[in-house]
């Protein structure tokens, strides 16, 4: 959902003037967005360590109920916010995209934690997707590993600011011919087929990390195996397969 600026047509000075005489003027957009923003139901979707911080955010101390988001709906049909909390592996990616497709419009995605944003500490592995924004559009990125519960609440407030800025006329989900069905990747022989959805994410032009480090996990880096033979050489029985 793009960030569309919504300048309400009433000029603020006139509105403050009228509120002094107890006449409250508002716009339909304000009420519509206020309703959606204050009761945004997340989907119960914890993947890894960030899910524990999400539960801690829903618990007593950092209460997510104060933002109206404490009702974690189990099924995607009744949720309108998907907090991707944790590492999205290649084996789990088709499920995440299918769940996102099953959610009802208007739906939002928060990528919580370094793993959901960019693959995080495990980005170089063979089984970790380098960020969930390769297949589905993400509204708010929350870095951190794991982000503290307050950071999740701050991210939720950023999302609420984004919801406030939307207006009914320009709302995407009411336009005709809305194509928000993202193709679900398949599990291919070496990883996901396709590796990413070019409509949603393009690799950046200058990727210093790849240019500078190549891939941290390089092929054939170590050429000599450790020789665990005992230091004091026992009677060396003729053993063809013993290491050099």
């Amino acid at each position, binding site marked *: 959902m793009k960030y569309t600026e919504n300048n309400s047509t009433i000029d603020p000075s006139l509105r403050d003037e009228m509120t002094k005489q107890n006449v409250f003027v508002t716009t339909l957009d304000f009420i519509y967005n206020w309703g959606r923003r204050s009761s945004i139901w997340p989907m119960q979707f914890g993947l890894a360590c960030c899910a524990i911080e999400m539960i801690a955010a829903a618990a007593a101390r950092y209460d997510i109920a104060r933002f109206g988001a404490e009702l974690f709906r189990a099924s995607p049909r009744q949720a309108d916010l998907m907090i991707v909390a944790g590492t999205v592996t290649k084996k789990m990616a088709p499920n995440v995209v299918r769940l996102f497709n099953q959610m009802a419009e208007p739906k939002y995605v928060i990528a919580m934690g370094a793993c959901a944003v960019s693959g995080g500490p495990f980005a170089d592995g063979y089984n970790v997707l380098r*960020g969930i924004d390769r297949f589905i559009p993400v509204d708010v990125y929350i870095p951190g590993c794991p982000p503290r519960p307050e950071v999740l609440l*701050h991210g939720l407030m950023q999302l609420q600011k984004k919801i406030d800025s939307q207006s009914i006329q320009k709302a995407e989900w009411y336009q005709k011919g809305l194509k928000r069905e993202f193709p679900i990747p398949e599990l291919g022989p070496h990883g996901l087929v396709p590796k990413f959805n070019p409509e949603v994410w393009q690799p950046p032009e200058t990727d210093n990390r790849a240019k500078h480090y190549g891939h941290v996990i390089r092929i054939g880096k170590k050429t000599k195996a450790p020789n665990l033979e005992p230091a004091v050489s026992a009677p060396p029985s003729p053993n063809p397969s013993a290491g050099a």
Partner: protein
Amino acid sequence: MKHFFKKGSVPFWGFGILSGLGVTLKNFIDSYFKKPDSGGVTTIQYPEEKSADFEAARNFPFLVYDETPEKPRCVACGICERECPVKCIHVVMAKDEAGKPLRKPAVFDIDYELCMNCGNCEEVCPFHSIFMDHDYEIASYDRSSLLRPMSKLLKSNDYFHKVRPVDAGKTDAVIRAAQEKKAAATKQKDSAGGQ
């Protein structure tokens, strides 16, 4: 081990549930009268009231400069870059026009979207120039703003004192001691050279 209702363990059938409800009732009443750490309401009203800020808390690294942002403490030695387990630091040493390397980074960017807040860079930096910050409100709408260039990473030494007073004091003491030792050594060398 309490087992399936050994007769003495539970006076009558519903007693266990009632005593449980008693506990929840006590907590419900306590939450109005008791202080937060002894049974009261422990909720932190996040935007207005923030949780206690611990000295050792580590969120994301930042660079320290003494007087002006043009002269950071960092000498672009690249040790933090090698020690970072996630490889999210990228350092390029500055060169003047004659190609002689200056002891200053031309490019120093940290990828906040990859960083795992482990604090190894702070431990290994021999020049006390990179430290872990406490600021955590950096959620953003697009991913490219999370790749922080040097201009955004540099923060003043007194910000470092404000955020982490004890550690900042210790590092300043260490730096002052090193400078005095160097000054004494050069003075001693001059005096030796002078004779």
